[in-house]
């Protein structure tokens, strides 16, 4: 049970850091004003239009599509795969499992392969394309490796050496109720879980902040209406009062 203890603590800590860290970053973004109107034009002129623009960016990676088809393809496959996989994993945290989660189970498996393919493509580009190698830091490469190992260890559990998923589910449902249950001992499961916890911990301190960041990007989230509405940040309004 020592291992179960360790994993339980790790996941509590990771969840706290993920949620707390993200909340802290998001609050920071929220509080920081955007003093000038800087949407990249042509831009929507209404809030509704902005919501659509953001939705296209988040769901379809519209700008990336116009920019570079290869990066778009690998990046998009990875993210769609990730979304499916995350949805599939909901079955470990819900009892009874929700209907739509049951329905998407097979797509979740497909998602695992999409993730692996996307990540491999991104890693290959990072190493092979001179420009992208030039801008890469060790952490960029490690991040891809981390995700790739998580993905592959997950696929191994599904196809090569299945683990006792029922026990895993009991463990995680237990965590939600603050109860401790044993955790199966297979190495690939342990690696999978440890790295997921690590990913949750680095999230708020790394470039993974692109996820909340896009919603706060003034070039994408501002409406193009500067002539119709006066846009004024609090610190800039102070200048006005001082004359």
């Amino acid at each position: 049970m020592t291992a179960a203890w360790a994993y339980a603590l790790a996941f509590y800590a990771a969840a706290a850091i993920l949620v707390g860290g993200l909340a802290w970053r998001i609050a920071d973004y929220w509080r920081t004003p955007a003093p000038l109107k800087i949407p990249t034009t042509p831009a929507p002129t209404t809030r509704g239009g902005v919501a659509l623009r953001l939705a296209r960016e988040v769901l379809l990676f519209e700008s990336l599509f116009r920019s570079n088809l290869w990066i778009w393809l690998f990046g998009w496959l990875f993210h769609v795969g990730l979304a499916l996989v995350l949805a599939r994993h909901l079955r470990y945290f819900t009892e009874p499992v929700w209907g739509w989660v049951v329905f998407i189970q097979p797509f979740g498996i497909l998602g695992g392969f999409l993730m692996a393919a996307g990540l491999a493509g991104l890693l290959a580009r990072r190493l092979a394309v001179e420009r992208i190698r030039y801008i890469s830091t060790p952490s960029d490469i490690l991040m891809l490796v981390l995700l790739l190992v998580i993905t592959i260890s997950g696929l191994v559990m599904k196809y090569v050496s299945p683990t006792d998923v029922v026990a895993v589910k009991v463990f995680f449902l237990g965590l939600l109720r603050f109860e401790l249950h044993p955790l199966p001992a297979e190495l690939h499961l342990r690696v999978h879980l440890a790295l997921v916890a690590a990913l949750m911990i680095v999230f708020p301190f790394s470039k993974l902040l692109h996820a909340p960041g896009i919603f706060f990007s003034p070039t994408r989230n501002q409406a193009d209406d500067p002539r119709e509405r006066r846009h004024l940040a609090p610190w800039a309004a102070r200048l006005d009062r001082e004359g």
Partner: protein
Amino acid sequence: MSTKVEAPPLRKYPVIPVLDIGAMSASKPYVASDKIQEAIGFPGELAPDWEAKAIAKMAELLGRYRSLKVYLDACVHCGACSDKCHYFIGTGDPKNMPVARQDLMRAVYRRHFTLAGRIAPKLVGARDFTPELLQDWYSYYHQCSECRRCSVFCPYGIDTAEITMAAREIMDAIGLGQKYSNEIIGKVHRIGNNLGLPGPALEDTLLGLEEDVKEDTGVDVRYPLDAKGAEVLLVTPSADFFAEPHVESLIGYGKVFHAAGVSWTLSSHASEAGNFGMFIGNYEQLRKIALRVREAALELGVKRIVVGECGHAWRVAYSFWNTLVGIGAGGDDPFAVELQNQLDHRYRQPTHICEFTWDLIERGALRLDPSANDHRIVTFHDSCNVARASRMGDFPGGQFEIPRAIIRAVANRFVEMAPETIREKTFCCGGGGGLLTDELLELRVKGALPRMEALQEIAERDGVNFMATICAICKAQFSKVLPYYGFKMSMVGGVHQLVSTAIRLGSND
């Protein structure tokens, strides 16, 4: 610049250049003297404790600008922007890739403001702010024209221009300013325009123009200065007053006002539409320069404010004036109210001269003879600040359609350049963002490469011999660099230069 500047060869098939590390590390603009710096409130020289001051300034800006904070965090180093900058395309220097340019600041940000960079700097590319890094800042943050092409293509809209502006602001705050921009800002405060033309000189120039136009057309077109009670205040880049081909457009604006029967005036107090406060990223300067326009508008009692052909000036006017000084609508603070009560809100405030002219053309209020431009085969260069940082008319993309619509109305032969080089994907002329200075000529020539290639294609195929644009910097930059690529410098001109040629005035023609 001791060696002779040569244009890079035009490429038949534009491939992404191989990296040429350090190719442009020696390209730096002249440093501002202590006099220039102090005149606009910056420290005169680099203090011994510059590093601490720079970090403190960065902390201040991170609290002021959401863009800076989010963009320094959010970049995933995907590389989508890496081949989008004209300076990278023209020079091959990897630090001219937008993401690498940002990383010069991101390295310092991570070192001083993030946990990972404090614990494991090597792992995340964090670096101390060394004198060498500061030199790289000075070099490469003056190889960005703040054109925002990269922001179009970034999946998060990361705008390197925002980073460049912040970097220049930090360098100014530690006493390392750029001579060209800061000297000009000083002139605006002292005299009222970037060129330092005093009121009497302006008056002379305008009288000269009236005579020229009279001689040409036989019509008394007025170019009024400081005329109280005029309907329209025209604010235009000061280059329009004397530089070629700029002045041709100024002549055109006057003819349009004349034909429309709208009374108008220029102002000696606000004889400059350009606002280099934006180039150095300094909000206070930006505002102080814009205030001159507000003061002039109140003083002259005008009902409308119209802006002449200038790219960054239109960005400042369209996107920022309302924020900065209340020229626009919707302000309810006492500061904005006085001006808004005076302006006529049936019209867009401010109005671009192209919007003004196009409204007249649409209403059939101008007599035009497009065949007068038949000796020209015209193309249109979208200026970056108009294309990616502003709008005209009532719908997104009006900034592309309206100038083109005018050109089609005043010229019979119009050809577009390649689609990946126009509209929001347009390439900067290579001289924007405060780089239009002689010591940066090599950079300017190389940065013009993608535009020159697109022009070459249609010059060969369609015989295009005139590139119209609506930016004073584009006009000056192209006049200078076109000859390096084997074109005539007179190939570039304004949209209102074409209007001026085609417009028919009075009854005696």
